[in-house]
Each structure stands twice: as C-alpha cells, then as structure tokens.
C-alpha cells in the first residue's frame, strides 16, 4: 500500500518546474513584437521599420490560423490585418456592444499565435457587420476590447474601417473621437488609427488624423489605373505625412473583388511597384490587399493553398518578399559565390553556365520592405546558415562566415541616382558605415575583398533577382557596365 503522497515529486522539483515555466513566459515576452511609433515611423521592439502587412480579414474563421500565420511570417510579412467582426464570422461584437466570450477567446488565440510568429496585428473594427449595432454601442465594444487586449504589445486598433464612406460603414468624426477617447481611458498606450477611404483625398485623412490625435494616418489609396506608379504613390504619401505622423498605406488596390471592377490589380507587378514606391516615399507601412483570407467558409482550408490558387498576383507577390539575388561582376562574366554554399570564403568566379546555387544570396533590408538605395542590408548564403561578412568590419577579406547579423554582416547597398533597387541595377556594397567597398579583384574571375575605399568598376555589381521581382526597368543602365543576365 502506498503512503499518500509517496510518489509526489520533491519540493525542489516543483521549484524547477515553476522556474522553467517562468523562464518560458519570459522568453516569449522577450521575443514578442512590441509595436511603437518613433516620429513618422512604426518601430518594432524599439527599432524603426517599414512594415509589410497582408489582409487576413477572415482570420476569425480560418480553420488553420496557426499554420496560416506561420506561413505569413515565413513568407516575410511583418503583420496581418484582421477584422474580428467580419460577417463571415465568428463575430466578436454583439448588437448590444458586448463581446462574445468564445469569439474573444478566438481573437486572443489569433493574437497569441501572431505573437509567437513575431507578427504585428492590425485589429480593424467594422461595426456595420453586426446588425443593429450603433456607434454608441460600438464604443462600448471597442473599449471592452481595448481592456481585454491590454496585454498585447503587438497590435494596433483601427477604430472603424473606411469610416468616411457614406454607407453603413460611415462613422462621424465625433463618434470616432468619442471611441478614441474611450480607448485611451482604458489603455493609454494602445496605438489607434481610424481609416479613411479615397472618397476623400489624403490631405483630408491627414487632417482628420491630426484633429483627433490619432497615432498614424491610415488611408486607402485611390482606385485609379496608375495607383501603383511613383508619382501617384508619392503624392498620396506626401499628403499623408504632412501631419508628421506615420503614413500607413493600409489597403492597396484589391487583388480581386466580386462586386466591383478595379483596374491594374491582376499582376504582382503592380503591387511590387506600389510597395517599393511606398517605402521610397516615406510610408511607415503598406498592406497587401488580397481576399484570399476573407471567407474561409468556401475554398481550401489552408491559406497556402488559397494563395497558390492564384499564381498572379497572389502567389507571385507573396514570394517576392524575401528576395534571392545573384551579383554579377564588372567583367559581365562572373558572379559572386560562397564557397561550399557558406561558412567559408567568397570568390567571384561563378559563371553563367555553372550549375548549383552557391551564387544565390538572400538579401534583406534591415529597415524592412523592399530594398532601396541607401538601405542597410544583410546577405544570407545558400546554406541558409551564414551571412556575408566584412572581416574586421571592412578593410580586409569578404567571408561567408557570419552566424548572425551584426555590424560586420551589415552592408549598405547603393546605386547611382538612388531609388528602388531594380533587377539589373548596378550597385555597390559598402561595409556598414565604413568607407570600404566589396570588390571583385580584376573585375571578376578571382577573389574578393572589402578593401577598396572608392567605388569604381571592380566595386560595381549587377544585381539580378531570381525570386519574383518587379520588371520595372532598371533606372540607371549606364554604358560600360555589364548588362547581360544569366547565371548564378
């Protein structure tokens, strides 16, 4: 007969378990994404970053939302835009303004999964989707949500989607202000916006945001045929930024819509240009507007299959966010190559005819978003385990031995005239803030170094993207520089 409690674990074991649990919680919190605002930029964990979102309006009804969010993160998005009250359900808000408990738990689960994936969530409220819900009761609901979600640092609130459209979405400025003050009273730290549609110009959205003391200007860009081109994007963002707050391009042109016709929306090219020009123009964030994750009551159960169902623009666009490139040397014949695929030296003697992928590098703008001239970037090696590294921070060799991104693994990419880095552009890579440029000795065919203090032909490389990319013409194809594309 066992004595009661005979095989209970000793007290020290309980202490260990609790220490483990506490450590796990601390680890989760430490690695969470904390969204904040620095001037006219969003910042994540204190570091300013251009944020790339994707619409997941129907996340509440996604049967595999954890897998979906993991995919979103893996593809390179920084966040998602969720409508917890979408009428495809389950809906968070009841007509009396109360939060439905099961649906609140569902929203918490989504936010927890997003936190695990280091994703930011734009929680957008849509009071028009609950029949009979008026602005006064919506205020109660949003305040309750603010209270319930106070512990989440990785979210922002859009108090009402397209509140300026004169239909059931409409919410007066006074009502928005009332909800905003209510949220502030519950959670002063919550980042809040209220989105405006292009029925009003961006200047209106900026003024509205400033008048109400909202944290960022959330605007849905004009649905015109050239919406993605630099002059349009630039003029919109310039107007949005006039209030000194972050310009959040919250809804790009939709990729498809059952009800309305939209122009210039059926190829990834439009969206690739739009996001790049948004970052170039100083936007704080941009959202890919697809309906792939709107209504999970029909279609595939996994977001991956839903995106793949549309090779253009969805699948092509979402596979462009973590670009892979090859770097062609000035002789036009050779490419940089990481010996062994990484973990060793870097040479410049790959050719266009060489089989294998040791010349294919990942490139990431450390400030987020597409790569722009002047960005600090990190380059990953084909083995997926290393980064290109300027030994000593420059003035020495180029290696492929970095295990994480530090100052030695940071390069500044530049091109003559500045602007978006396009396929085929001639670029230089400078070691962080040093004067040292990456060079292919002899212009290619041999070794490399980071020992040149001026940028001439040996320090100039043609960059070619091997992942989906904009076909917008390279802006500076200068004479004398290599232009032929092949290899890697």
């Amino acid at each position, binding site marked *: 007969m066992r004595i009661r409690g005979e095989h209970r674990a000793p007290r020290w074991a309980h202490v260990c378990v609790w220490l483990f649990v506490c450590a796990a919680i601390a680890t989760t919190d430490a690695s969470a994404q904390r969204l904040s605002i620095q001037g006219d930029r969003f910042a994540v964990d204190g570091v300013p970053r251009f944020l790339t979102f994707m619409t997941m309006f129907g996340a509440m009804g996604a049967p595999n939302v954890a897998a979906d969010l993991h995919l979103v993160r893996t593809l390179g998005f920084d966040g998602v835009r969720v409508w917890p009250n979408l009428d495809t359900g389950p809906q968070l808000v009841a007509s009396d303004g109360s939060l439905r408990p099961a649906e609140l738990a569902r929203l918490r689960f989504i936010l927890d999964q997003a936190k695990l994936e280091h994703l930011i969530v734009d929680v957008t409220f849509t009071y028009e989707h609950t029949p009979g819900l008026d602005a006064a009761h919506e205020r109660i609901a949003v305040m309750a949500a603010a209270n319930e979600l106070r512990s989440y640092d990785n979210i922002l609130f859009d108090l009402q989607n397209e509140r300026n459209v004169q239909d059931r979405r409409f919410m007066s400025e006074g009502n928005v202000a009332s909800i905003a003050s209510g949220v502030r009273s519950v959670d002063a730290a919550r980042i809040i916006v209220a989105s405006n549609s292009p029925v009003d110009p961006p200047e209106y959205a900026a003024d509205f945001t400033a008048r109400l003391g909202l944290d960022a200007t959330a605007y849905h860009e004009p649905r015109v045929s050239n919406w993605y081109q630099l002059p349009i994007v630039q003029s919109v963002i310039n107007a949005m930024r006039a209030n000194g707050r972050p310009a959040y391009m919250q809804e790009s042109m939709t990729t498809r819509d059952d009800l309305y016709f939209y122009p210039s929306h059926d190829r990834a090219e439009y969206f690739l240009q739009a996001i790049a020009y948004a970052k170039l123009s100083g936007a704080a964030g941009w959202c890919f507007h697809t309906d792939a994750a709107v209504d999970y009551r029909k279609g595939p159960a996994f977001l991956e299959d839903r995106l793949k169902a549309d090779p253009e623009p969805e699948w092509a666009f979402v596979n462009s966010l973590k670009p892979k490139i090859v770097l062609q040397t000035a002789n036009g014949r050779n490419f940089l190559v990481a010996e062994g695929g990484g973990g060793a030296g870097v040479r410049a003697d790959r050719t266009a005819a060489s*089989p*294998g992928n040791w010349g294919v590098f990942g490139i990431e703008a450390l400030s987020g978003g597409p790569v722009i001239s002047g960005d600090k970037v990190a380059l990953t090696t084909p083995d997926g385990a290393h980064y290109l590294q300027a030994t000593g921070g420059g003035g020495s060799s180029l290696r492929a031995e970095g295990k994480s991104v530090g100052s030695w693994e940071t390069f500044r990419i530049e091109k003559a005239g500045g602007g978006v880095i396009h396929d085929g552009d001639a670029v230089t890579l400078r070691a962080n803030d040093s004067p040292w440029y990456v060079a292919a000795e002899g212009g290619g065919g041999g070794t490399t170094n980071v020992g040149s203090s001026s940028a001439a032909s040996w320090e100039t490389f043609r960059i070619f993207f091997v992942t989906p990319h904009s076909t917008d013409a390279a802006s500076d194809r200068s004479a004398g520089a290599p232009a032929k594309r092949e290899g890697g």
Partner: protein
Amino acid sequence: MPIRGLASIAAVLVCAACGGSGTPSTPSTPPTTTPPAATTPALTITFTDNPVPYKTTGCNGSTPQGWYTDARVQETAGVAFIPKTLTQKLDGVVADSLAESYASRFGACAGGMFDPALIPPKGAVCAVVGICSATQTASTYQLQISGTDLSGQVLTFTSPLLQLSPR
C-alpha cells in the same frame, strides 16, 4: 633507360626467381605481407548520373536548363593531395564558360568536412558539375583536377567522360 628504371626491373626479376615454381614440400600458411605504403595520391572521380539527362529546372539561380549531376572525388591511395586548379571541358575542349576555381566548385560531401587546400588521405570532396544552358549543344563533359602531393610532385587527375544526353 634511367638507372632507376633498370633497378626496378631487376628487382622485379629477382623477386620472381625467389618465388620459384615448385610446390613446397610442407604445406604452410603463407606469411602475411603488408603492401608497401603508397607514396602518391590517387583520385577517383565518379558521377552520380552518367549519362546525365537534360533538365529544364534547377540548374542554377537564373538559368534553369542544363545538364548537372553530382561528382565525387575520392582519394584512394591514402595520401594527401593538394588541389590547385580545376579545368572543365566540353567535347574535349577547355570551356571558358566554365572557368572557375576548385575552391568555389567543390565542397564537402554529405556529412564530411571540406578544406579547400587539401584532400586528406582517403578523403573525398563533392560538387555539382555540368553546364547550365538553354542553347549549348555539347555531348560530353569532363573535369580535371591538378595539384601536388605533399612533396610538391605535380599530378593531374581526369574524370571519365560525362555523357550529356540529347535534349
């Protein structure tokens, strides 16, 4: 003939005479002999696929079409080899389009280690080899690795012909 060569032949003849042709009167277990240690590295080069089919995907980052397969270079004599240069040929002619270094072409075999300056005794190195092209019409590929042994003796090892299947 150099004196060294004559001496070798004499040694072989003497050895043959010693062996005799008669049957020993008393059966006995032959003495265990240890073969003389090799002093020269020997590389054996093999291809995973030979002939290698033309493929339309996966050759390199931006030219998906081509012929490619894995090559393994195995040192078999138990003597280290110092690789210096790699030469790649198409239809027996050195291919300028494949002019690249041994160090950037070869690496570790699965589960192994790689030192670009040395193939250790009984060691092996591996690479993807072939040619990526949508237009090339070659029918054979071959590689040569030149280098030295530890004493500086220059050696060149040539692979078998890799047959490139018609497109």
